[in-house]
């Protein structure tokens, strides 16, 4: 029983992890080696260097531009999400105003509402506002993060005793002072958590930037990756008819691009895992 359980776990480990191993080995091989060698064979470091160089310099510095765009959209969206969500969560949890419950209910509904259903009307709206093709057409939607509001609400309502705030008010603190000097310092974990979720959601979003951007100089990495598929020989026969003098991308180059595209999120995953998990659970199960 115990043994069988372990075997099942190992089987799933293979399922989850083998593609990752494959991905990191792929850029060390040439296109020919990729299909003819064992999937787990290591090519060579010099091939890796060539692959890296080829993809980073492909079409000028497209990949770096996409990386920069992804960073602008994601960090902008994340900053806005945090700035909006933390005070809103605080307000919902620890202040009273007319419509508070209604707002909370709407938040829950919108949180469950699949955002992609709104991409088309959002596109038309952004166009009417004159924001289409600007970074705001992405930063604003990324910054609207009801899930973060809900997390913050739960955090504030379960970790900060109301008596503490009441005492501060009696001592003459203003509402802003109470928030700024009592709530915010206590809210560090939830700020990190909301920031992380908002960042990952923005970084990985495909459909919205796919619609909202003018051309490849505005693409974030996720959309850029799809374009790279069209530039990769095996995935687009037209590339075979290209002249012999130009650089044609191959599958290992594409794998390298994927690694670069996921690196930021992966690094957060690797180094902040413990904090994240703890944070996730504090937000979640605080008694």
């Amino acid at each position, binding site marked *: 029983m115990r043994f069988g359980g372990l075997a099942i776990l190992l089987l*799933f480990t293979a399922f989850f992890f083998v593609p990752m191993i494959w991905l990191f080995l792929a850029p060390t091989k040439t296109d020919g080696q990729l299909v003819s060698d064992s999937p787990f064979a290591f090519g060579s470091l010099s091939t890796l260097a060539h692959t890296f160089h080829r993809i980073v310099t492909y079409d000028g510095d497209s990949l770096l531009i996409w990386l920069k765009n992804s960073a602008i959209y994601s960090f902008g969206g994340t900053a806005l999400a945090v700035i909006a969500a933390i005070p*809103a969560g605080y307000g919902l949890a620890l202040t009273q105003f007319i419509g508070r419950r209604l707002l909370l209910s709407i938040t829950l509904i919108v949180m469950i509402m699949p955002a992609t259903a709104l991409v088309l009307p959002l596109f038309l709206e952004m166009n009417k506002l004159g924001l289409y093709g600007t970074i705001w057409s992405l930063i604003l939607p990324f910054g609207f993060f009801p899930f973060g509001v809900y997390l913050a609400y739960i955090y504030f309502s379960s970790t900060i005793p109301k008596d503490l705030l009441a005492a501060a008010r009696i001592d003459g603190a203003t509402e802003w002072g109470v928030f700024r000097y009592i709530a915010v310092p206590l809210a560090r974990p939830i700020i990190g958590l909301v920031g992380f979720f908002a960042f990952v959601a923005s970084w990985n979003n495909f459909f919205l930037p796919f619609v909202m951007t003018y051309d490849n100089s505005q693409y974030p990495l996720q959309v850029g990756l799809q374009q790279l598929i069209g530039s990769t020989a095996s995935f687009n026969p037209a590339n075979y008819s290209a002249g012999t003098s130009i650089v044609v991308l191959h599958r290992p180059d594409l794998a390298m691009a994927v690694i670069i595209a996921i690196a930021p999120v992966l690094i957060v995953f690797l180094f902040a895992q413990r904090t994240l998990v703890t944070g996730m659970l504090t937000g979640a199960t605080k008694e």
Partner: protein
Amino acid sequence: MSIPSAPAVTSGRKSAARGGRAAGTREQLAPGGSRSAGYFFVALYVLLLLLLGVAPVVYAVYLALSGSGGLTSSFTSAFSDFRFASAFEHILEFMVIWLVSQTFLVVALVLMLHNLSQRVGAAFRFLFYIPGALAGAASVIVWLFMLDPTASPFGFILHWLGYAQFDNTVAPGNLPPIFAIMAFWTGAGGWIVVMYGALNNIPHELLEAAQIDGSNAFQTAMQIKLPLIRKWIVYMLVLSFAGGTQLFVEPTVLGSAALGVGISKYWSPNQLAWFIASEYDNFNEAAALSLVLLVLGLMVAALLVWRGRLFEVE
């Protein structure tokens, strides 16, 4: 798929106390500070909510109802499109396979992990969690290779299934399970972490008591642990369902790499909506389709939320 995160559940004690009040707002005024402060704190969020949450929905409704042929014309022409039924069949098949297998496997894996030592369990959780960093286009590109029998590390399995080349693997009948596997690959790890955390919150005394009562590991899992993470399972289903109806990037990217073999540009309903908007320049019909998806997602979510008593907000 992005990383799932937790539904927050406040303590039962607090809710009970609060629930006993008749009309709470007035008497809470004193501890809660002034009303205007509350408005101030939520103002920015409310603006965003109006602009990006409420307005697009209203606009979508307006668009859907203002088709050239009258109020319901956009809906009727969407429903009668020859691609409509197949797109919804695809998504239905995908959802059933994905939701059932994800629910079963995540719960089974997390219960197994919970029986291991803390350190070993953490290692497994980490390995399961890592693919979550790959979402959308990135994960599809990786799976393009995983599904090609001639290049895949899983090639032996594909050959054993009788697939000699990529086109065989991505045969139309296989696409729903393939997308389910992709979704599971990126999403399951996050849920496992979340549920493991929830299990860790079960008081030790409770588990010890069960042991003393003579129940074995399996019985403890089924009778004590499972009921305690029920909420999380419902939550996982709600978010997965809402997200799953929107399947877009996976079929889009797979289609553009598979030389169009076996996968159309209108495989999923969301793709069909986009196709109708962009290729026929018919945003009204596209909005009608989007609304159908939205309502579908919300209905199921609402059902699960209410039946599962998920969000105890006060």
